[in-house]
């Protein structure tokens, strides 16, 4: 079966600061060889800490970040071989929901006009637009009397519903969700997560779900890719990875989640990492995680471990992973 989205060895390198002064241009290797696939109806999460390249990966798939190397296939079609018009048509099938609905919405447009915008751009007639906007508002749980409100008159959760309705206007097949609930109040997050799950069931959507919130990812994703310094260090079915993480970084990440559970109190099983993420301007030659890894050996600094299959559907980039 053809994957809906496939990234093949994707690289995004940005010119770093100090470029153009006669020195060798430093390069930020934001994404340094990421391969992943998303099937129809599947949710794949990309997790990792700030600077790991998870958002850049999503932006590159959307055409919002220049690709240095690698290929992107949507429904089997190589994006780099498409004409401008074909790419534009394709963007109807791939939409995005960003973290901050305030920044994503024009404060001067009413709810109805914000949702209608993609339809208008794609030349829908006024009558069709009005009908579709009503449909979409009902779909995401907005009341009809909110049609003429402006974003500032809405709550955070309602604004994110508007952003989701707008993303769904042209019936995309893939929605890239970049931290879609991180800016929302805790009591509102579950409403939006339930909405995303329901929309997926009803519309057969696929999600690329980018998040730093591991509890949310555990709840919503079928598969998870853990990124560190521009590369995937572990990938697998979400339940498997969370139950039996094999990469030392995944283990540290999962152990660091504060759990709302008093039974665990006083039993600190956290793996505390020393130091910070190395600079993506000068990533280490060996394993990118070696400088903070509690298991690192000499070999880890000599060469970079490949992303290898360690069990059914499990890929791990480590010379000394935990066996399952």
């Amino acid at each position: 079966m053809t994957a809906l989205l496939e990234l093949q060895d994707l690289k995004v390198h940005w010119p770093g600061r100090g470029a153009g002064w006669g020195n060798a241009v430093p390069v930020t290797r934001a994404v340094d060889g990421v391969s992943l696939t998303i099937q129809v109806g599947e949710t794949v999460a990309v997790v990792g800490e700030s600077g790991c390249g998870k958002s850049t990966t999503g932006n590159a798939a959307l055409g919002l970040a220049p690709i240095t190397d690698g290929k992107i296939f949507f429904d089997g079609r190589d994006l780099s071989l498409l004409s401008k018009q074909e790419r534009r048509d394709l963007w109807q099938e791939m939409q995005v929901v960003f973290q901050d609905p305030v920044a994503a919405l024009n404060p001067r447009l009413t709810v109805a006009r914000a949702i209608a915008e993609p339809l208008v751009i794609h030349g829908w007639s006024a009558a069709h637009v009005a009908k579709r906007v009503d449909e979409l508002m009902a779909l995401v749980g907005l009341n009809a009397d909110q049609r003429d409100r402006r974003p500032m008159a809405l709550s955070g959760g309602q604004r994110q519903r508007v952003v989701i309705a707008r993303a769904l206007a042209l019936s995309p097949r893939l929605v890239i969700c970049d931290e879609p609930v991180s800016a929302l109040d805790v009591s509102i997050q579950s409403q939006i997560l339930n909405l995303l799950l329901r929309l997926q069931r009803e519309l057969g959507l696929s999600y690329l779900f980018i998040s730093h919130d591991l509890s949310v990812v555990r709840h919503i994703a079928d598969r998870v890719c853990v990124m560190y310094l521009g590369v995937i260090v572990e990938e697998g079915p979400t339940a498997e990875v969370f139950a039996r993480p094999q990469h030392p970084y995944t283990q540290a990440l999962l152990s660091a989640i504060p759990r709302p559970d008093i039974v665990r109190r006083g039993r600190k099983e956290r793996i505390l990492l020393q130091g910070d993420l190395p600079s993506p301007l000068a990533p280490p030659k060996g394993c990118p995680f070696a400088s903070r890894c509690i298991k690192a050996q000499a070999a880890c600094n000599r060469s970079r471990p490949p992303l290898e299959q360690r069990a059914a559907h499990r890929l791990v980039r480590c010379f000394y992973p935990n066996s399952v």
Partner: protein
Amino acid sequence: MSLLEITDLAISAGDLPLVDGVTLDIQAGEIVALVGESGSGKSLTALSVIGLLGEGLDITRGQIRFDGATYLGAEAQDMARIRGRDLSMIFQEPVSSLNPLMPIGAQVAESLIAHGVTSASAAKDAAIDMLDRVGIPDPKRRAEQLPAELSGGMCQRVMIAAALISQPRLLIADEPTTALDVTIQAQILDLIADLAQEDGTAVLMITHDMGIVAEMADRVCVMYGGRVVEQGAVDAIFSAPRHPYTSMLLRTIPRLDHPPKQELFAILGNVPSPKNWPQGCRFKTRCDRQSTACDIAPVLTGDYHHRTACFHPLSEM
């Protein structure tokens, strides 16, 4: 005697009430979490304790006592005397809270010098020691660097060092790890817990993360709509929450041991803004237990171990 006692505190912006009758106390060496969503009044409560309420915000009622002495409405001079020495604060955004043009060592040493505790050179040595204690590698060299040369996690540790160098008796931490990654967050939380234990520093920790509350705090105070709705020992509140809001909040959080992709429990409606607070109980419009009784504001009842402001609390199972 409590180290900090807040009694019936109310804060308004003009006619608009933002905090309405908060009562809270902290003992020496205790970690108390102040939990709430946006507009709950948790940050304003904390800012009023350290005397940093912004322009246009006034304390309209209540009392704040620190170490037995009332200082609410104290002269600015008296406030400045204890702020930074007995009372310190860590903010959410380390980068915007540090002076970008001042070496970090000097920023850490500043409060010692300002309070005339030590000479400038002794303060510098103390700052380097403190940077070492909060886990800044190579502190002697780092002390000369500017905030922009450090990562976000390191800047947060610098701010903690600056807050703790004068060995305050109370540390107020306003979402100290929200801007940080989870592995760095774990380092910072462990650091705060260790310092509280070793130095007997009391901590008022403001957070919206119930996971942090469960792992860090001794007691918790849950705020909604400018009021305390439930407070008491963390064990009591997490094992048997009595206020419907607390109970629902704990149920909405996705958990690592729950079945994935199932519908999560959701609290209906939205967090009301202070302009739209309902009469009486402010949670009633989102509550499944509300009745006409809730048109009158409930008061906190119960004992020190567990207090709730609700006419229809969940009974203990």
